[in-house]
């Protein structure tokens, strides 16, 4: 790791100021950034830790009934605290191991947009709104491809607001080594329709499987998915699975999520 300074702001305003310093970089739970630094693959001069900002931590319900989760909230806190949103709690409980869940944050995971991470599937699958220090961005506009989002440099994810579905579930097939998603499906049934988001599979990162959404919107049950499949074209191929395998798993995991939805 190269030498760097660390700042620990206690308010969003202080964080914004700290991030305006030359080559400053925000630090959430550090589950991706710290290993990257240890490999000397990044060289920020200042790290701005966001986990000490009390206003960015915790889970609540706003007046519109949206589940609001602070950007600095850990996966473990969501697993334990999002009891009114089954799929979200299920998703958070399966990230990494206890050490990861006690450090890693929602905001860090959303901002990183790893193509195999769980949070992007939850945010996209729930049609969440990503709130930053500057603006609100719909999940449909936020995720823009592998490791790419609509977030500007220095912009802080302070919160995400999740509409609470009638039924939801997350079904993850783990990549055996990392236990990230080889393919995972987040399914949420709302009164206005069904959303299905897939992570781990596509070279373009998290995506919505619209055919499945339409079919499930007509009839929310595993049978609705019969005959539906995604094409291997554009799916990730690596040591752990071919594009064909991943395309196949999209169908399997979506069906399992539908079966598990509650």
């Amino acid at each position, binding site marked *: 790791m190269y030498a760097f300074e660390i700042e620990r702001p206690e308010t969003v305003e202080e964080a914004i100021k700290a991030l305006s310093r030359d080559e400053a970089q925000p630090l959430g739970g550090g589950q991706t950034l710290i290993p990257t630094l240890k490999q000397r693959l990044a060289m920020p001069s200042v790290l701005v830790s966001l986990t000490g900002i009390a206003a960015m931590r915790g889970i609540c319900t706003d007046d519109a009934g949206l589940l609001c989760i602070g950007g600095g909230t850990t996966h473990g806190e969501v697993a334990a605290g999002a009891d009114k949103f089954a799929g979200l709690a299920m998703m958070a409980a399966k990230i990494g191991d206890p050490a990861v869940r006690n450090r890693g944050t929602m905001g860090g995971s959303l901002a990183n947009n790893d193509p195999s991470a769980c949070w992007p599937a939850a945010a996209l699958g729930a049609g969440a709104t990503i709130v930053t220090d500057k603006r609100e961005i719909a999940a449909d506009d936020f995720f823009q491809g592998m490791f790419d989002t609509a977030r500007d440099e220095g912009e802080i994810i302070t919160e995400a607001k999740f509409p609470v579905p009638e039924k939801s579930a997350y079904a993850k097939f783990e990549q*055996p*080594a990392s236990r990230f998603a080889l393919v995972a499906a987040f399914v949420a049934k709302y009164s206005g329709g069904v959303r299905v988001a897939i992570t781990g599979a596509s070279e373009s990162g998290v995506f919505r499987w619209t055919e499945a959404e339409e079919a499930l919107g007509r009839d929310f049950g595993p049978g609705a998915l019969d005959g539906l499949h995604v094409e291997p074209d554009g799916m990730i191929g690596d040591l752990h699975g071919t594009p064909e395998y991943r395309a196949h*798993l999209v169908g399997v995991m979506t069906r399992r999520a539908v079966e598990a939805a509650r």
Partner: protein
Amino acid sequence: MPKDNASDHGGIGASPKRREDIRFLSGTGKYTDDINLRGQAYVHFLRSDIAHGKINSLDLSEAEQMPGVLRIFTGADFKDAGSIPCGWQVTDRFGNPMQEPRHPVLCETHVRHVGDPYAAIVAETREQARDAAEAIIADIEELPAVVDMAEALEDGATKVHEDLTSNLCFDWGFVEENKQAVDDAIKNAAHVTTVELINNRLVPNAMEPRVAIGDYNRGTGEHTLYTTSQNPHVIRLLMGAFVLNIPEHKLRVVAPDVGGGFGSKIYHYAEEAFCTYAAKALNRPVKWTCTRSEAFLSDAQARDHVTKIELALDKDNNFTAVRTDTLANMGAYLSTFAPSIPTWLHGTLMAGNYKTPLVYVNVRAVFTNTVAVDAYRGAGRPEATYQLERVIDQAARELGVDPIALRRQNFVTEFPYQTPVAVEYDSGDFNRLMDKLEAKADLGGFAARRKESEKNGKLRGVGINCFIEACGIAPSNLVGQLGARAGLYESATVRVNATGGITVMTGSHSHGQGHETVFPQVVADMIGIDASMIEIEHGDTANTPMGMGTYGSRSIAVGGSAMVRATEKIIAKAKKIAAHIMEASDGDIELKDGKFTVAGTDKSLAWGDVTLAAYVPHNYPLDEVEPGLEETAFYDPNNFTYPSGAYACEVEVDPETGKVTIERFTTADDFGNVVNPMIVDGQVHGGLTQGIGQALMENCSYDADGQLLSASYMDYCMPRADDVPFFVVDHSDGTPCTHNPLGVKGCGEAGAIGSTPTVVNAVIDALQSGGHDVPHIDMPVTPSRVWAAMQQG
């Protein structure tokens, strides 16, 4: 087989808890990285990021000016040093020695694998050394890399070592005189089953990465190397005599607590020689701590065989011949014992548990631009077992016969048994093991369990495997004929203190095995004192007799036997002293429960009375024996030991995803006599887990350019606790080894040797039960591979 007095003394057959765990679990162990010497500097190795290249120039000028840099070393600094030596010379089919390339401490003209070190920066801190490494301007011209073994052997292939005639290290045939007879038997067989398979390359992944600290005392001219080694005396000999020209009396090697080795810490590594050399050059201790990322690129890797095996059977399903053709990857250099693994530790086991009269094994060892390959838990024997037990399973399927019956029909049943591949099995009872397995694994209940799985949408399969392996490789005069450049005895010094406590200095080395608990059990049993009176010292060449260390499941069989021999000398001398004091003749003295008695009388002396007399020899037979009570023995066995086993595994396959889960795993092992059953259980559990890891998960994979694709735990899958079931293991009632004093065989590797074919046989059985005509899937049997196979068959 607990003995009557086991519980009294914590002796043979008892299961006292591991005494070393008190320090390991309470953070008071002392590992090499815990050692920090005054004034120590740190080295960072600059490693090649390409698999093959020619070093045109290294510009160190800027790096040398960086803060904290003491000196930067390159290959030129080691031009007078020897090559990192290979400890085993294989002679090929035609009587020629293997091709043996130079392995410099730091690369001289070429880099030959990703991770090959070509500069070493010593600085005041680790980070400064790393900073300076980035300022070195290296002009390294990339050359084509050879990764695939078959391509490496093609005419005109790029050579890993330009001064060798080709990438072929050797072409070995065993038993060469049987070749024609085997070919004829296969030609004339009623049935021949052929399987082509890959034994996947592994990264050993000991929990503790390697560490080396060199120290030099310019007042005495003595060098000390602290290192994570399984065999400090071997490192002292190899490094001192062959690389750095330091006589052994001026070189001390210390391997303190070591956090796992599995073979990967047997070898003499360049980093050890570097730290020892640099400490003198700089007159400062020099420390290197390997990162996990570096371990993936520098620890000797494992397995990597590509094999075709043919099994010939007569019309009554008797095995008539086995013929194998294997390519064995050596990597870019010959690691310490690399050539012995695919040859003498592999070919000699190719008869397995069966009375196949004719066996021919051909192995071509190949250089590639990859990390060196050497022994890893099992070392050659897993490769032998895997192919043999896969082809037998496939033969049973082709012939429509029960796989257990086919094995039983061909078992060796009389011992000693001379195999057609040189070795002679001294003892075993394969039918009894299979009987035990069938009962313990409840194979009779399998059909019902399969039904239950099918009800849940899963395919269930059962896999059976038998194996015999060879441990405690010996005797030295034989292995010398086979090409070993070392002896394979073991040593022990038993030092009895004046007040009766005992320190045993052993040449064996414990890096997880539990010697500190087990070895005292043996001495306690012989003398009849409590095991807590005995302490084990190991790992420091300054206070232990020359020993060969720990690998090949040899410690209790060879090291334990040396300790028995030394203790026998102690008892014989103590009896003489007791006889003198009690005014009796030596022959009438008995030692039981720590008390010397004179037969037929009520005279007795306590153990402590005699040990005190040995050091305060007032009333003492000074004209017969010297004062003191300390004896050393070197034990050189007259044969290998031959543990054997029968394993059963039940798996479930999720037909939708291809995911395999291990539902049951049962073992019946014959380890001969067992000293500490609890520790043996643990050894089996660990071995099984590593074998399950190889079978289902672990995959050291290089791309065509020689880049390691699985270079971290993000892609290299280690087995975790939730990947394995609760094991049912049995090693009771073994057939004792006939040629060592304890009747022990060794248990460290059996689990890793026996488990891979058991798992794969089970997966194939599950797929077949689901109507998929899949004859074979290469390891690791990952979900994507299983799914792909199901789409084909």
